[in-house]
């Protein structure tokens, strides 16, 4: 007989792992499906100092603690990519109201529970989660797919990953000591990356396609004051040049249209993040940016499917809000299951 889960959680980052903890503590049968390494975005953070109750912890340690907590409670984890979600429904027969005479002589109207068209113990209503490593049947689904770093989508980007192109300044900056690098982006990550790299690199260029930076003004001011940092606004990246490794950037002035080349040893990409919910777009509503439409109650438009963490529409994306969503989604799943079991 196929195993039936109470909750299948797609994604084992902070939101997914928290949902697994709450789900297990409520006695639910929980499976997490993760396509990469568990822990999510926070694994890359060297130091987390703003999680309430934890003075300072490495991102890796935080993620590992969450993982041990969830799996220690009995949550299962499988490495796979979810390809689609298929609704399972069975024909429900609602018996007519019966008039029954009780021992006290009074006749009462009784509505019996619905009968399902097949009387074995298979899942009557729920979801089939199709993945690259098998299919899973479940009563509810929690989508906790987070976000991924946005790619440039310029030829050469794939080839030179680790050979001049990086998406994590704190991870890879050490390898560019006394070299010339560029950071592309206009938000907080780009500015923070540039500030970090300016400590070890000979020269840091900050390339931004608009005139104004979206990031923190104080960081911007500090950067401008540094001798080895040069800000190039209104500058668009049009191409990447190099042989075995990245050697130069092809740039264009957005105002004059003039093309120019900048020789660099490395390029750090910090152009934002985007969700990865394409596999679910026929089942749950997505907003124009691809985030799953759900608010603080974590409910999506699909019955029994909940969204938790960075992957849903929200204003604040932090560890705390991801953990909050995991809690709420797990609770909502439990209530949904209980309600369904009562035949309503």
């Amino acid at each position, binding site marked *: 007989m196929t195993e039936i889960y109470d909750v299948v959680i797609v994604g084992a980052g902070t939101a997914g792992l928290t949902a697994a903890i709450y789900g297990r503590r409520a006695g639910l049968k929980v499976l997490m499906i993760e396509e990469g390494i568990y822990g999510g975005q926070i694994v890359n953070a060297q130091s987390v100092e703003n999680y309430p109750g934890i003075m300072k912890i490495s991102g*890796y340690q935080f993620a590992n603690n969450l993982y041990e907590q969830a799996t220690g409670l009995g949550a299962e984890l499988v490495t796979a990519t979810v390809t689609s979600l298929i609704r399972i429904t069975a024909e429900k027969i609602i018996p007519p109201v019966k008039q029954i005479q009780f021992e006290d002589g009074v006749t009462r109207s009784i509505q019996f529970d619905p009968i399902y068209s097949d009387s074995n113990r298979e899942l009557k209503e729920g979801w089939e989660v199709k993945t690259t490593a098998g299919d899973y049947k479940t009563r509810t689904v929690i989508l906790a797919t987070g976000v991924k770093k946005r790619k440039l989508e310029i030829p050469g980007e794939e080839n030179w990953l680790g050979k001049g192109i990086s998406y994590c300044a704190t991870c890879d900056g050490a*390898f*560019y000591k006394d070299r010339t690098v560029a950071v592309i982006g206009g938000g907080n990550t780009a500015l923070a990356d540039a500030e970090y790299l300016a400590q070890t690199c000979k020269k840091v260029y900050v390339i931004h396609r608009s005139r104004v930076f979206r990031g923190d003004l104080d960081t911007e001011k500090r950067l401008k004051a540094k001798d080895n940092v040069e800000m190039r606004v209104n500058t668009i990246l049009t191409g990447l040049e190099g042989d075995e490794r990245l050697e130069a950037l092809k740039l264009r002035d957005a105002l004059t249209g003039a093309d120019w080349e900048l020789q660099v040893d490395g390029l750090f990409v910090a152009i934002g993040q985007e969700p990865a919910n394409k596999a679910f777009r026929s089942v749950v509503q997505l907003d124009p940016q691809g985030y799953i439409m759900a608010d603080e109650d974590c409910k999506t438009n699909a019955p029994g499917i909940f969204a938790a963490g960075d992957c849903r529409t929200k204003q604040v994306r932090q560890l705390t809000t991801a953990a909050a969503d995991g809690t709420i989604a797990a609770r909502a799943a439990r209530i949904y299951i209980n309600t369904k079991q009562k035949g309503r």
Partner: protein
Amino acid sequence: MAVKQIGTDNFETEVLQTEKKVVVDFWAGWCGPCQMIGPLIEQLSEEMPEIKFVKVNVDDELELAGKYKVESIPTLIVFAAGKEVKRQVGALPKTAIRQFIEN
């Protein structure tokens, strides 16, 4: 087989002059994803006895990392008959690491 830490001194003998296929794990203590795959590499070294697994701490061996053009960690490089066969930049789950080594 446990994963041995090596450096410039013994890279030649431990990696380039070895008969077996060798997987070199370039890592550092401050790198989260490196710490994630560390235990996976240890497990694979027990499960795949036909392959030799070693690790290089890039903080201690920056020159060695530079020599093999390692600019992002974790990086796994597979060596056979003294030459680099292929490399993987970035962390992967255990099944994917195994597939990368085997194929």
